[in-house]
């Protein structure tokens, strides 16, 4: 168990163990930082020495300049904001709508069986192929981009959450039935709470999928957002802008993932 209480007085061996453990942890962290700094420095030097062509590969100092420029123009936060918003709306709605759909399938075995082949096919289909259709149907804007993100995560969520529902221990459901529980009560008291880990892991997957959906959407719609900056930068051969946007994207995606992990810990503290 993780919460074994520490003895009031730690033995020498244990202290030594803790110390070596800590040391190791710092060693890992230190190496990670050195690796990052080393990469950035090497990249910069390689550009300055002419080993690589900064026009094509960009360069840390150029990226920094681009960042400052974007900041001064004030457009940076606008583009980040749009992309982040679309992504959040995409994965949250994908998870919620997918879960609602999974509840429907759980509720009706008949519906689950009827829809099974369609879901399998939709799951296999690369949803990005539907992008142009979405734009024609919904219009050339944020809504289409969000729809893209939603679509990409929806089917995976339905299948994952539904299979989570089906794995709830049948004895647990039996127990509730002997108390006279209705189907709604079974859903509410057992199926949903037991599936919180499944739903959160779906959410985690959806964060990644939603980023893909949004960036592809922005590539197609090309109006605003980090995806737009990347496409635009590529078209006018401003690789500095492309690299900068990619790095911001990586940071934003990492922060969002971390937030979901924190959310997970909050929900699963009873474990």
């Amino acid at each position, binding site marked *: 168990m993780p919460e074994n209480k520490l003895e009031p007085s730690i033995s020498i061996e244990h202290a030594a163990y803790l110390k070596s453990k800590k040391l190791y942890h710092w060693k890992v962290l230190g190496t990670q930082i050195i690796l990052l700094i080393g990469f950035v420095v090497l990249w910069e030097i390689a550009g300055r020495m002419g080993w690589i062509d900064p026009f094509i590969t960009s360069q840390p100092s150029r990226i920094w300049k681009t960042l400052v420029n974007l900041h001064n123009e004030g457009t940076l936060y606008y583009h980040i904001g749009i992309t982040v918003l679309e992504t959040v709306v995409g994965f949250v709605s994908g998870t919620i709508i997918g879960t609602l759909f999974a509840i429907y399938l759980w509720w009706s075995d008949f519906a689950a069986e009827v829809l099974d082949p369609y879901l399998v096919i939709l799951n296999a289909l690369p949803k990005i192929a539907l992008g142009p259709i979405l734009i024609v149907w919904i219009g050339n804007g944020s809504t289409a981009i969000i729809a893209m993100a939603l679509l990409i995560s929806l089917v995976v969520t339905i299948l994952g959450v539904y299979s989570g529902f089906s794995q709830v*221990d049948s*004895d*647990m459901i*039996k*127990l*509730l*039935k*002997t*108390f*006279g*529980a209705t189907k709604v*009560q079974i859903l509410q*008291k*057992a199926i949903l*709470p*037991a599936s*919180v880990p499944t739903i959160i892991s779906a959410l985690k997957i959806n964060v990644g999928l939603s980023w893909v959906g949004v960036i592809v959407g922005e590539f197609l719609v090309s109006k605003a957002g980090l995806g737009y900056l990347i496409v635009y930068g590529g078209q006018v051969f401003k690789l500095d802008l492309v690299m900068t946007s990619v790095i911001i994207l990586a940071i934003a995606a990492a922060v969002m993932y971390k937030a979901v992990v924190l959310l997970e810990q909050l929900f699963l503290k*009873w*474990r």
Partner: protein
Amino acid sequence: MKARPIVAINNISMKYQSTEGEVAALKNVSLDIFQGEFVSIVGPSGCGKSTLLNIIAGLIAPSSGEVLIKDKKVSGPTIMVGYMPQTDQLFGWRNIWKNVVLGLEIQNKKTEANINFAQKLLRDYGLIDFKHKYPSQLSGGMRQRVALIRTLATNPDILLLDEAFSALDYQTRLVVSDEVKQIIEKENKTAILVTHDLSEAISMANKVVVLSKRPGTVKNIYQINLTCNSHTPLGCREAPEFREYFNKIWKELDVHA
């Protein structure tokens, strides 16, 4: 005058249907169980013991025959029957107290009297200090006791235990079955226990029902009278008659290794 049985099983047969064919699980099973009795059901694996309990609990309907509980025909789960599954099935996301009141919550009976009763059960059986703990923080034996209290909290008259101790290790199992037996006796409940452990069946029960192999029929019923002064199942294993019952029922079961 003969007392009326609290559970009357009248000529039950059960066939499970599937596309591969039908499986006859029970055939013409009749059995009367009286108020306050502790009945053990033993029989070879797959002979329909769980099926029988599920029918008594109203979870499945028999193909023919009927079960009467207090002279009323069973047609679905009733609050008179409490069920204890093989594993404790405590809900990990609920603390002990929330687990104990689960049944009351579902039956919409969280009255002050019922809450107090549940509190009293926890106190009586030494679990009150764990009220706010989560199931993962309790030992297997304690969890099983919580599961029993959860069942008792809705105050059913009849308890159904389907191999309720088989998930516990041997020592815990002896202790917990002892406790459970005492609790059930003290609360004056009627109990039906399905088990594979013959010693457990004999030491806990007033009556052992032996089912034949599938389709299960009642092969024999043993009235158990053990001369033991301790009156706990563990103590009763020392009784001189224990071996005799054990050997007789063992032969009856016709187990071939």
